[in-house]
Structures are given as C-alpha cells and as structure tokens.
C-alpha cells in the first residue's frame, strides 16, 4: 500500500499533474472565499477544462478544488464575518472576533494551518482506514442517522450565548424553516400559504448568506453610523504580519484535540448527506465542552478556529472514503468527480481501488499534495486578502452585498432565492438585534430535513420505537445527546456564576 502511495506521490509530482492540481486548488480557494459560490459550483466551472485532460489530471484538478474550497471559506469568515462556504460557519464564531480585535493575520493563519494539519490527518484516515471507515458507514441505518442528528441538535444547548431560551427559540425557528415546502415523502405542501416560491422548499444557501451577510453588514453599518470608517478597527492597530512558528505551535500544542477534531470531520464526511457544515459545528461544540475556559468561546480564541477548520478539511478526506469503497458519492462534489470517471470510461465501484490502483493512489496523492499547495496559495494571496480590512466600509460592503445577491441568483438561476436571501437577511438582522444567536438557527436549518426523513424511514421499516434505544449505536448517540445537553447546562450555569462574580469584582 505505501509503495503504491509513494508511486502515486512521485507520479503526481510531475508537472503535467501538478499544474492542474495547482490551478484547481487556486480556483477552489477563490470560489471558497466568495460568499455564495459553493465548492460544487466551482468544480462545475472547472469541469469543462478537464475534458481534454487524462483522467488523473482531471481528478487532480477537482481534488484541488475540493481541498482549496474547504480552506478558502475561512478567509471571508475571518475578515468579514460571513462564511465563504457553509463549512466555514463555525470559523466565523471566533475567527471574526479575533480579526476585529486587531489580529486578522493570526486568525487567518490559525485557520490555514489548522486546515493543513486537519486535512492531512483526514488523509491518514482516508488512506489507512478506508475499509473500517466504510464498515462504520454501513452500520448507520435510519435509527442511527436520526440519533446522530439529535445529538447534533443537542449542540444548540452548547452554542447558545447569554440566554438559553433565546437559543432554543432560534433552533426551533431553524427547524421550522425546513418544514416549509413539500414534505419529503409524498410531496404534500406545508405552510406554503399559497406562495409559489415557497412550494419547492427553502434552499439552505440563500438562508445562510442572508442570515450572516445581512446581519453582519447591517450591524456594522449601524455601528459606524454611515461615517467613512475603515473595515478594520484600526484604533487598536491591525497586525497583518504573523509569526508562523507561533501559530503552528498554537495548533500542534493541542495534539489530542487536533486529532479528535479531524476524526469528527472524517466521520461526518464518511456518513452521506451531512456535510462539512455540521462537521465544523460539531467540532466547535466539542472544543467548547472540553475547554477549561468555555466562557471565552466566541470572543476570538484560537481553539474555536482550530476546531472548525481542522474538522472541515478532514471532512473532505472522509467523503472520499465512500467513493473509494462503494463508488457512492457522499455529496454533490464527489458526484461530479464520479461523473468525470464515467466520462473517461472508468467503472467506479467497490473494485475501483484494486482495478485502478494507479488512479486511486493518484487521487490520494493529489489530496495530500493539495494541502501544501493550498498553504502556498494563501501565503501568496494573504497580503492582498488582508488588505480587505483596511478598505473603507462604504466601498467594501456594497460590493459584498452585490456578490451575495449574485451568488444566490446563480444557485438555480431563479429570483426565488434572491427573495429568500432578502427575507432571511431581515430575519437575521432582527435576530441579532434582539439577542437571538444565529448558530442554533443555522443548525436547525441544516438538520431539520435529515431528522424528519430518517424518523419517517425508521418507523416505516419497523414500528417498534424502542429500536432507537436498543440498537447500540443509536442508543449510544441518544445517551450522548442527553449528556451533551446536561453538560452544556452545567457549563452554562458555571459560566454565568463566573461572569456574575467578575461583575461583582469590578463593581466594588
């Protein structure tokens, strides 16, 4: 196996593979950084260029897009507080505050290096454990998926800020959004009020951009009061330069956490239909739970960025597992990669690795090499990207808003998504204004559909409700959700006491 991997690395290191890999990664970073442009859209743009290439060249380019895109989203998340891709949602929570505190360079590089190490760890899982990971994926029936998503929803308790009640309301609102439109089984219309564009259901992406971009930008505009201010709060001095050794040490001094975040990312990647957004939020929640200073989360601390970024890049490794083991794509990005194989007349499926070892290990090698290339690209581009924070807000915000609208429109080339963007932009702004946290809301929107369909499937398969508890993995996950909620409540109370004590100190 390692000889094959070494041969794959030597093979990929040739210029004819390195070039597509480089340009793919570059396209991925740019596409990832643009809010509203998804990795799938970027890969579709790149796809036509790969038709004339040999299969491995094309796959190298697409692997590059995938890896680059997963990292690129952090740039916008950190600098503007708007996730460039859904996978970067959790990066906003601590990345943006850190940038606002005057350390955008540190925040970006923490994200980049965490992506690098997380991605490589994901690669180790991908290459070394394809078979066992695939076996885990098969253990997941509808009961297990249901319980896993319940565990994910239980994170709402951990992601709420000041008020638990407001967090729960936000999460509930998110779940309600997924009910709008036609039901997933028989297509009955629900809560559509006869409005045409609601009938098809609400797409996730315009909701995400609307909630984050509008809430962020409107809030900033309000604070600056229309004055020609710079986007970065320069009063405290913006540090653009950063010591890489220090940043890398900040990440590597937490080896077990890093490994755990990468594992969470890989595992979520292996299970189909979940995606990197849930992976990064789960890792963030876990980081908060194991932290000795949970009250600091959300204020711009390194752990938050590391958790989110290491897990979302490891997630890419995970989603390549099912394609290698069964030829089943875990998401739309890997589906396009599979399609590329078919175009070249290669049968994907469980025998793919043994029948096409050169190609399979070529993909592994491309995946590993895409990471240093991603770091290189961001190193070259960081100088320019960081300039964003020194731009006047009056120039920057309109451009970003226009980009968001174009992204929402381009998603399906319909105006419906632009209206969705507008509605949820207003909602997001009001939520922030009245102190409702956005994270639980987004979590609800991500998970609602999946919870519903898996509950329906479980009951259709077997009407016995005890199966949720008696099936070991499912029962374990449900137990974990209960513990997760209890732990979060306990932590919440302790944090409140601490803050109360701190307030007391300052008063006297």
């Amino acid at each position, binding site marked *: 196996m390692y000889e094959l991997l070494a041969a794959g690395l030597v093979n990929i290191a040739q210029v004819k593979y390195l070039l597509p890999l480089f340009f793919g990664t570059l396209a991925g970073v740019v596409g990832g950084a643009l809010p509203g442009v998804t990795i799938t859209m970027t890969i579709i743009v790149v796809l036509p260029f790969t038709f004339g290439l040999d299969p491995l060249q094309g796959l190298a380019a697409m692997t590059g897009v995938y890896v680059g895109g997963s990292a690129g989203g952090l740039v916008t998340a950190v600098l503007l507080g708007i996730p460039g891709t859904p996978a970067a949602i959790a990066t906003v929570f601590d990345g943006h505050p850190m940038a606002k505190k005057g350390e955008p360079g540190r925040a970006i590089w923490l994200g980049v290096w965490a992506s690098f190490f997380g991605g490589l760890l994901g690669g180790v899982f991908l290459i070394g454990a394809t078979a066992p990971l695939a076996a885990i994926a098969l253990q997941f029936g509808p009961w297990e998926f249901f319980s896993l998503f319940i565990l994910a929803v239980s994170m709402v308790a951990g992601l709420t800020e000041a008020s638990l009640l407001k967090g729960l309301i936000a999460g509930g609102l998110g779940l309600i959004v997924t009910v709008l439109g036609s039901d*997933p089984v*028989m297509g009955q219309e629900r809560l559509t009020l006869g409005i045409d564009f609601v009938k*098809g259901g609400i797409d996730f992406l315009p909701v995400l951009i609307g909630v984050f971009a509008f809430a962020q930008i409107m809030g900033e505009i309000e604070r600056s009061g229309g004055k020609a201010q710079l986007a970065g709060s320069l009063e405290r001095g913006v540090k653009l330069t950063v010591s890489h050794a220090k940043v890398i040490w900040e990440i590597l001094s937490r080896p077990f956490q890093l490994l755990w975040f990468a594992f969470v990312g890989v595992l979520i990647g292996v299970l189909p239909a979940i995606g990197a957004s849930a992976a990064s939020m789960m890792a963030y929640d876990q980081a908060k739970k194991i932290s000795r200073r949970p009250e600091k989360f959300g204020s711009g601390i390194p752990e938050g960025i590391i958790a989110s970024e290491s897990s979302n890049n490891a997630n890419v490794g995970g989603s390549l597992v099912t394609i290698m083991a069964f030829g089943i794509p875990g998401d739309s990005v890997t589906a396009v990669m599979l*399609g590329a194989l*078919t175009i070249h007349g290669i049968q994907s*499926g469980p025998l793919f690795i043994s029948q096409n070892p050169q190609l399979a290990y070529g993909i592994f090698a491309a995946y590993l090499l895409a990471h240093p290339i991603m770091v290189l690209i961001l190193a070259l581009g960081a100088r320019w990207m960081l300039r964003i924070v020194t731009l006047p807000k009056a120039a920057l915000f309109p451009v970003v808003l226009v980009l968001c609208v174009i992204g929402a429109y381009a998603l399906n080339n319909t105006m419906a998504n632009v209206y969705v963007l507008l509605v949820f932009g207003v909602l997001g702004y009001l939520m922030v204004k009245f102190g409702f946290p956005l994270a639980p809301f987004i979590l609800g929107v991500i998970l609602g559909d999946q919870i519903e369909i898996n509950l329906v*499937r479980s009951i259709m398969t077997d009407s016995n409700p005890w199966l949720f508890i008696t099936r070991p993995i499912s029962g374990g996950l449900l137990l974990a959700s209960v513990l997760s909620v209890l732990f979060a409540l306990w932590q919440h109370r302790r944090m409140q006491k601490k803050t109360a004590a701190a307030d007391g100190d300052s008063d006297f």
Partner: protein
Amino acid sequence: MKKLIAGALAALLPLAAGAAYPERPIKLIVPWAAGGDTDNIFRPFAPLLQKQLGETVVIANVGGASGTRGAKEAKDSPPDGYTLYAVHDYIHSTYWAGVADVNYTDFEPICLISSTASVLTASPKTPWKSWQEFLADAKKRPGQITVGATLASTSHFFPALIEQATGVKFKYVSYEGLAPRMNAILGGHVDLTDSNLTQKGKVDAGQLKFLAIATEKRHPEMPNVPTLKELGVNVVYDVNRGIMVPKGAPAGVIAKLESSCAAAANEPAFAQAMKLQGTDVRYMGRPEYAKWLKQNDDLNRNLAKDLGLLKR
C-alpha cells in the same frame, strides 16, 4: 478585493452578451440525488450534449418528494431552453398515484436516450441465495420484507408488479433515489430494492445480490442473472430516460436541442458509457418520443389502477 471584482465580472458577463441560442450555460435538472442511476446516465451524456450545443451543460440535482420537486422546478422555469429536465417513467406514475400535479403534458419532449432494465436486488445481509429461496421466505412472512423505494415512482411500481404476480406482500420504506437506497441496502437496513445493472460492480465485489432481471431475455452484461419470465413471473419492466423542456419553448430552441440530442445520443462515447451502466441506448426523436409518451402514460395509468395506487 481584485478577486471579488473579477468574480463579479465573471458572473455578470454572460448577461451582457446577446446572440443566438445557446449563449449561456444550460441547466439540466436531474430530479434525484447525485450518484443515483439517473445521475449516472446523464453525467456522461451532459458533456456530449455540451459539445453539440457549444455551451456548458450543468447538472443540478434537485431531489425530494419522489422526484416531483425537481419536476415542479423544471415546470416553473422559464421556457427559454436554458432549463432542461431529465425525466423518466416516474413522471407518469407519480402523476397517477397523486403525488404531484406535474404531468408529462407540462413539457415539450426533446428526445429519449436510454432504457435500463430493472433488477430485483437483495441486501448482502439477507439469507437468500436465489430467487426461489427469496420467494419461499417472502410467502412465509407477508408484510415483513422491507423494500427501499421512491414511493409512487418506478422503484415502487416494479416491486409492486412482483407482489401482484406472485401474491407476496412487501413493506415499503421511503428512500429517494438509488444512491441513498444503495447505502441502506449495503448496510442491510432494507432487504430489497429495485436497481439495475448500473450497480453490477457491487455484485461483482460480493456487496449486493441480483435476484432476477425484468427483461425478455438474459442480459449479455450479466448472463448469470435469471429473468423473471423464465422463473415463471410475467413481469418485464424497464425505466426509460429522456430530456424535456418546459412547455412554451421557442421552436428554434427545440429544433436546436433535438438535433444536438440526436447527435450526442448517437456518439460511440455515449454507447460506451451506457455499456458500463448496463443500459441500452434507446434513441427516439421528438415525434416518436411524443407518441411513445402518450402510450406510456396510458400504460402507467392502468398499472396504477391494477396496483391499487390510482388516485385520480
């Protein structure tokens, strides 16, 4: 910043141009999840069509509600030839079973491209080694054997035809599209499903079992799989896939699409790709396809009636 501007320009450019159809990328709606059989068939077709049209053809997977979510979206799209709809026989079955109000008459047919025979497929976790063992077990345990299916679609009709012909009773579980069904059946979370030769790689690897194929004669790609007919079950069933556009598309656009589709479907590369998918290329031009759709609709109405699924 420069990148942001460049991205904005790139997104706006297509709007600025103005010439004959097509002048910007075309969206092909596949109403099922990525990696399913419909997706597998249209993925290799899209670049061939793109070559003929001279514009990018992008596949959009719009799954949900037995494929009718994608159908509704296609129907509601502007009839300008920039939204194509990858359709199969489910458009008739879901209409008659009352899942959706979208009918094949809401669209203009362009061409039929392929025909894929259905194969009754069992999970590796099931004890049956052959059709006979399966049938004996199914008769002993009515209503207990689970079938993963897109409700009211072809993957529901095909097992229902077997139920009707053999007198067994299945329990249906909703899995939209073949890709999610595959995950469930590989893990043994459902016992049976309708699949086809697109999945033969998994059978070769021992991860799946083909019990019987619904063709007239055994298929050359999988000659050791018996036909339902030779097993005494008179069921022949296949799923036919084609391309349609929303009603009201200009005649020039339809003509361009029809000629492009014909050229693409007749390319050797398409035949080669379909062979890998265990699918026959079945090309029909616009007039022939329209006639066939009418017949197929009547056939499906009668099927729905016979199976007790008719809701109209």
